[in-house]
């Protein structure tokens, strides 16, 4: 457990930080282009703000990178409690842009949920590494979900569906990594799918078939399997009745979670404009600062959620490829570290972080090309957003700190 900073730096793989810097630079490059036509004060533009946030990001990175790893392990639960309090604090303040996502510190908005994403991973990893023997029991699946559901529910209420999704997905991957039976994970997700598919006959029928097949091949005890199947079907059938008995404002509350409310102009319009921007960019793009979709303001929220559309339009498919390869490299590298790690706790943290990164990249990119509905999730290192940038750099600091297992 000897701690030596020089050692650490000399053993550091330079590839991941280099790639992160490339991605940040691409982001700033595109934000500069966007900022040109936003009018107003240059020092308050998305570009300048992002540039300023690189400093706390690097500080955050160094901080996490140099903390002895056993401290991270020991304080996982404490950090978790702070994170839960953190995401609840914005409710004490005022509505900002219709949500409770922000804490205002000296005029700078700060989004605790961004940090809660990876702090939650630490707590989950701690639990799963401390209780590794009975992983094949269903109770060991339920408790981690409980740990994740507390911050998820608070974030969902903010409302921030995107972040809530990011908090719940790593639970699945980490449980699988820790050795849970995939069937148990399936049982937990099944009711949600039953409810979601219940609105239309065809998806519901398909879902019922999948459910039946999975249960059949997993060979649980007969009574358990049959009751599981019918509980789900019953829930699905009952849901429209429950739904209709809700008052309209309650229905609206649930719908607003799933409804994209980024812009009054409507989600279909956003997607069309985003696809047009990306498509018209072609293989090499229209050139930096030359995107008509971007600069004639057809493209909505271009500095954050739709930054990839700006890049697609101005810098072309070739740049998109570069970005995706960079992300794929980082994510696969983290997975490899997780596999090589001879410590269960660190291994699980690495898996969790890679899941967060993959989810962000996939949801954001798929949204810009209309593969999935509009969800407000930013692209790591590239989208404008101070808290998220700092949080991403801290995640990288974390994985570089614990990922290199040759020293333990």
């Amino acid at each position, binding site marked *: 457990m000897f701690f030596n900073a020089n050692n650490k730096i000399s053993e550091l793989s330079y590839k991941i930080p280099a790639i992160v810097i490339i991605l940040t630079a691409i982001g700033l490059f595109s934000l500069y282009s966007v900022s040109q036509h*936003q009018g107003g004060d240059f020092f308050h533009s998305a570009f300048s703000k992002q540039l300023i946030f690189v400093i706390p990001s690097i500080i955050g990175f160094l901080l996490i990178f140099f903390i002895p790893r056993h401290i991270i392990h020991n304080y996982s639960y404490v950090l978790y409690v702070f994170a839960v309090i953190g995401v609840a604090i914005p409710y004490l303040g005022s509505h900002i*842009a219709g949500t409770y996502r922000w804490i205002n510190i000296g005029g700078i908005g700060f989004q605790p949920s961004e940090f809660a994403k990876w702090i939650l991973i630490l707590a989950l990893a701690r639990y799963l590494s401390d209780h590794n023997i009975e992983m094949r029991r269903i109770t060991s699946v339920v408790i981690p979900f409980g740990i994740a559901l507390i911050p998820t529910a608070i974030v969902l209420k903010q409302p921030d569906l995107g972040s809530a999704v990011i908090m719940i997905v790593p639970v699945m991957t980490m449980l699988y990594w820790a050795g849970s039976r995939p069937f148990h994970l399936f049982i937990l997700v099944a009711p949600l799918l039953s409810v979601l598919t219940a609105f239309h006959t065809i998806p519901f029928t398909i879902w019922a078939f999948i459910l039946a097949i999975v249960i059949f091949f997993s060979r649980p005890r007969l009574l358990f399997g049959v009751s599981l199947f019918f509980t789900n079907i019953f829930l699905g059938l009952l849901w429209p009745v429950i739904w209709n008995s809700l008052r309209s404002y309650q229905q609206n509350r649930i719908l607003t979670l799933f409804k994209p409310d980024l812009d*009054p*102009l*409507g989600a279909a319009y956003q997607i069309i404009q985003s696809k047009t921007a*990306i498509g018209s960019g072609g293989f090499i793009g229209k050139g930096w600062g030359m995107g*008509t979709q971007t600069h004639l*303001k057809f493209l909505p929220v271009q500095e954050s959620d739709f930054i990839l559309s700006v890049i697609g339009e101005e810098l072309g498919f070739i740049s998109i490829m570069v970005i995706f390869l960079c992300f794929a490299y980082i994510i696969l590298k983290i997975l490899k570290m997780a596999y090589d790690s001879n410590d269960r706790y660190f291994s699980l943290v690495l898996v969790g972080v*890679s899941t967060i990164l993959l989810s962000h990249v996939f949801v954001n*990119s798929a949204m810009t090309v209309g593969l999935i509905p509009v969800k407000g999730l930013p692209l790591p290192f590239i989208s404008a957003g101070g808290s998220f940038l700092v949080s991403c750099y801290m995640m990288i600091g974390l994985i570089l700190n614990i990922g290199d297992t040759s020293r333990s």
Partner: protein
Amino acid sequence: MLKAKNVIPKQRLIVFTIVVVISFITLIGRFFQIQVYQHNTYQTKAEANRIKAVMRNAPRGLIIDRNGKILVDNYPTYVLSCIPIEIEDKDALIKLISKLTGLDSLFLRQNYSKYYRNRFSPTRLAKDLSFQHISVLEEHKSELHGIQITQFPERYYPTQISGTHFLGYVNEVNQNIRGKISDKKQYELGDLIGWHGLEKEYESELRGDKGVKYIEVDAFGREVGNVDEYKDIPPNPGNNLKLTIDAKLQLLLEGLMSTYQGVAIVSNPKNGDILSYVSSPSHAPDLFTGSVSSETWSNILNNPGRPLVDRVSSGLYPPGSTLKMITALSLLDKKLIDPKWATTCTGSYFYGDRTFRCWNENGHGEVDLRKAIAQSCNVYFYKVVQRLTLTEWSETCKQFGFGKKTGIDLPMEKTGVIPTSDYMNARYGRWGWSKGVMLNVAIGQGDVLVTPLQMLHYINQIATHGNANLLHLVHKKPEEPSRRPVFSSKTWKRIERYLTAVVYDNKGTGKAANPNIKNVIISGKTGTAENPHGEPHAWFVGYGKKENDIVSVAILIENGGHGGETAAPIAREAFRSHFNNSALNIETSNSDY
């Protein structure tokens, strides 16, 4: 140190790797499809068929009086704006516009920087264009590249009434205001937002929702035509606001009050409808519409009468003798007084180390409770109030709603001051005050401060024996007050008889309030409130009953001297106007909520 040796089956790493690879292949495949395979389709779309969504303003709701008469209307004005990116030479353009229309080029330039948001949004140069302006600009359209003339609904006041203190006004949204609005989607620079009075209180009702219009524009952002692919979302106009105000009565009272500084308010005590709401002096309701000349503005600001202040809901005054019913009711309720008991008024009363005076220096002679109210004898009240504690007295005040907001549907209302023992201790120290304060508060002087609106609610409670509802300006279901005064029906009736004596007795102080209309009975109380600003304030609060129809008034004339002489005659005109028109007014509109 860290326990749990890690052994992960290779199979799991393979599963994860496959998921990651498939995710990225899906994304790259999709981007390839759009960017390379379908590039030409989207290229054409981006070049030739740009669809732009333009916000359309919703007209603001109208404000109408109880009989459907429009008090606040919308009036189309024409706005000249420009799209910065389309302008080649800004200075030359402004010079040309200035030459053609005669509008000051400095003014145009100031507007340009005031409304500028970005190169693509229309930036306002001038509004309220005249038809000459429009026609000359249209004539030279070919030389004026990048400008547009659009319609914009401005607030317009078709009646002669001012009503500005309750109607309020709208303000133009500027950079500063917009920064503070939470719902930015609904407000663009130059839009109107309720800034005072009902316009502010009912902003969300009046505003309506913006619509969206999709238009096709060319590569330079110029409008080419309409779009069929997207359905326009029509703007949803704001809701009209129906007031309880009676425009005719309002106009009458504004006229009568025009020579005074003060307040005249009329209401229906049963449901709380306010029929008239006059705060004088006032100003033209369209003062804040369009540009105000600095001369008008400094006149308003320097006017010693402070016309911008709404005296009705935020003017604080000593109520004077009009508050005597509080003392009388408390005493009767606690059986601390026999109404037949009489005492002698010599014009003054000595208590502690000072002399308390009656308004009638010669004295009222033998005075019982009836005479004390009808002729407003102070000495009688100086004597009897000593049987009450300050707490008992202030408790009765609170039952009538004093010391807190009446809850009227306006944004700024004051609470006034009702001294309690806590208040007195805090203000003068534990030993700094004595029972002597009771002598002052009994006749509505000393630390007591009320708003005219609270006085109206107070007289409404007396008129309805404690069944009055909250005062309001917008037609709606009556709301119950949080507290009601509770007294026996005998006590209520007794006070009512005495208030009638104020108007009908030979020596009653409120005789001037009697309109002499058959079957109409007027009850009320005058007040002459001493204040540090000179002549006493004149008060009259009262109500008239004709079968089921009740109407109440509260009149205040600042420094008007005796209430019976200046305030009561204005009340008389209000009663006269109301009961001569009552068949038309009240009966019809009581039922239709």
